[in-house]
């Protein structure tokens, strides 16, 4: 009890602290004030992503505002995990922004819980113009026969390889049909010849779970969504055993080493600074941010994820992310107009430049292909190769998939296995049992 502080000082301090909290909760002190001009329309857009995405998205917002001067546009951007924490709280409080970004699993969940505004009326009235969008891509945002979002671009998971490192190591670039056996050999070879890691982070990424089973010809989730579709843990156990072999051989970073960069986005991945010769791409679109950070003088190529021996290609081409209008929007039509601008305007997309994935509008895509820079060229090339041999895109996923990712897959399976606390068999069994419980409960 510091005697030096009088009661009045104490009150003054705590009042200041309280005011500070209020201000920080509401972001800027001015954001709560009503707009001065009567005819102004407010639009708020929140997305997740790194600095490059923030820069280009704000430019496009400014372009939209120039064409629609009556729109008062505000925006925020956050890292992926922070984004979902904030937006979940805003959903609970009924304070969602007009426009938000979604992934495939969340889109299903949020539209089923009536948090998103269906876009069908705006598509019918032409506010959102789908004339140049192939039907299969239009339907990527369809949940229960209603379209809840537009795809911001197409992508696929993949591995990025550093062509110069391969050349230096004297290792040939493998064919697209490479297997996990080839992969392990190449990673070991790269790391031995170059003295760097053969592969970077996230060789245990949650998306690989589905890709590996899909490579064996099995879906991940049962058609009724109440359980996993498999009962045999062997494919994922084999994979984690390979990860452990590589980790023990120091051919890939130890989990404690990669944890530090895994949440920081593509710009922070090890391949950017040449610490590894191959790295994981959570989406092919991330090559843009990654290559921009690494520098123009580098030479990258995207490879499909390897397939099992005698298996098939397990990758699907899917939306990298969606843009959706929420039920809390007071101006859903204006929000829909922005989405239309976002996917169809050629000038806007020259700035966005496939950073969120390959544009779904074919006219826009053709315009971009004319002057494509190296990263975009690599992505267009990759998706074209993949289009000839890829697994079907399964959508929507059952409810509870995000819960499994955050609360089971990493904390109960891959992390303890990679830290050596449990065996891959134990971990895989826990993963299957807990996932089945969550799916059964969430999809009654």
């Amino acid at each position, binding site marked *: 009890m510091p005697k030096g502080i009088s009661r009045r000082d104490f009150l003054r301090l705590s009042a200041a602290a309280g005011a500070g909290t209020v201000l920080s909760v509401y972001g800027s002190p001015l954001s709560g004030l009503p707009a001065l001009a009567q005819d102004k329309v407010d639009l708020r857009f929140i997305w997740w992503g790194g600095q490059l995405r923030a820069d280009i998205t704000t430019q496009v917002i400014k372009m939209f505002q120039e064409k629609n001067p009556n729109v008062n546009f505000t925006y925020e951007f956050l890292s992926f*995990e922070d984004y979902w924490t904030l937006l*979940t709280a805003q959903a*609970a409080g009924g304070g969602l922004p007009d426009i938000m970004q979604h992934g495939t699993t969340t889109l299903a969940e949020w539209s089923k819980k009536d948090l998103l505004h269906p876009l069908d009326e705006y598509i019918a009235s032409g506010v959102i113009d789908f004339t140049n969008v192939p039907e299969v891509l239009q339907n990527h945002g369809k949940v229960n026969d209603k379209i809840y979002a537009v795809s911001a671009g197409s992508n696929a998971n993949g591995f990025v390889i550093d062509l110069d490192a391969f050349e230096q190591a004297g290792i040939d670039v493998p064919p697209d049909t490479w297997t996990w056996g080839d992969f392990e050999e190449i990673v070991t070879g790269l790391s031995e010849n170059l003295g760097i890691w053969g592969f970077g982070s996230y060789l245990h990424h949650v998306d690989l779970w589905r890709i590996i089973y899909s490579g064996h010809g099995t879906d991940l989730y049962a058609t009724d969504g109440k359980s996993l579709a498999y009962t045999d843990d062997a494919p994922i156990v084999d994979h984690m055993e390979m990860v452990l072999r590589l980790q023990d051989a120091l051919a890939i970073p130890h989990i*404690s080493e990669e944890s530090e960069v895994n949440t920081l986005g593509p710009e922070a991945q090890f391949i950017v600074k040449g610490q590894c010769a191959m790295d994981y791409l959570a989406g092919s679109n991330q090559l843009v941010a990654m290559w921009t950070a690494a520098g123009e003088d580098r030479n990258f190529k995207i490879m499909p994820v390897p397939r099992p021996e005698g298996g098939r290609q397990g990758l699907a081409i899917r939306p990298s992310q969606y843009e959706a209008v929420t039920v809390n929007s007071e101006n859903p039509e204006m929000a829909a107009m922005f989405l239309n601008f976002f996917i169809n305007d050629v000038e806007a997309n020259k700035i966005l430049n496939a950073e969120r994935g390959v544009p779904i509008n074919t006219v826009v895509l053709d315009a971009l292909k004319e002057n494509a820079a190296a990263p975009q060229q690599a992505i267009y090339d990759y998706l074209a190769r993949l289009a000839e041999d890829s697994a079907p895109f399964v959508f929507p996923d059952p409810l509870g998939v995000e819960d499994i990712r955050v609360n089971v897959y990493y*904390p*109960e399976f891959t992390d*303890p296995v990679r830290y050596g606390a449990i065996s891959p068999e134990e971990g895989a069994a826990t993963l299957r049992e807990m996932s089945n419980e969550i799916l059964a409960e969430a999809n009654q």
Partner: protein
Amino acid sequence: MTSVLQKDAGKFSLAKKVVAQKGNKKWRHNNLMGYLFISPWLIGFFTLTLIPIAASLVLSFTKYDILSGDVEWTGLENFRRMFYDDPRYWRAVRATVKFAFISVPLKLLFALLVAELLYNARRLVGVYRAVYYAPSIVGGSIAVAVMWRQIFASKGLINEFMLDAGLERKLWLFDIKYAIWTLILMAVWQFGSPMLIFLAGLKQIPSEYYEAASIDGAGTVSKFTRITLPLLTPVIFFNLVMQLIFSFMTFTQAYVVSGGTGRPLDTTLFYSLYIYIRSFGVGANMGYGSAMAWVMLVVIATFTGVIFLSSRFWVFYDTAEN
């Protein structure tokens, strides 16, 4: 702060008694004015503290999905799941208990040591006091936690020192052996507030005792163990209870340093962080979070109760003064 408030509350009840005795209009008017002036605080207490606490008790028996807003009565299901079906819950308990049981004794020991040094210091006592107290003012803040994360990062300050000293760099925040120790160190570093209380306690010990002991030929050590420690037990008791409660509720530091995940391998998944993850994170279930919070309340109350019960065997009150 607590005792300041309690003291004020005491004055208030005293004032009320006086009012009741006098009972005239002017006093009643003053009374009303009093309530009017504290009404912002009262309204805040009822709407922001008491109602949510009551609501969380009800919610702890439900499944409350904050995304859809659906509330479903599930009885004791949350508690069953917590104790029998949630391995992460027990890892959170383990991390919290380990943190509390190591950081609190270390912190108190350190606080007492520094208080003793300051008590004997002759010059610049005010400056030292401010310097040592500063960490406990800023220590719970996001900024300091961010700084801590940078200091212990793989290319942070500590690793630079390690390299300069010819040692290997360590991944302090991501190695399951070290991660929780960075948080324990941070807690111990915030020894300022128990230190001030110890200092006040030391000053209350009459100097005659020490003089008498000196005449009897007692050395520094025996003076400390025979006089200082026994007479300081009420203060130790108070500090122990307060710090134990604080350490069970630690959130910010673990949230920032572990990136909100409790990594590595849930070794820094403190109980309140896990409540937060379950209540606000993906698959958010506010009901489950509320149930966990109520279990924490009971556990903290139990620990406090045990310390109180044990106090009669080791806390010495110098009743002669009263």
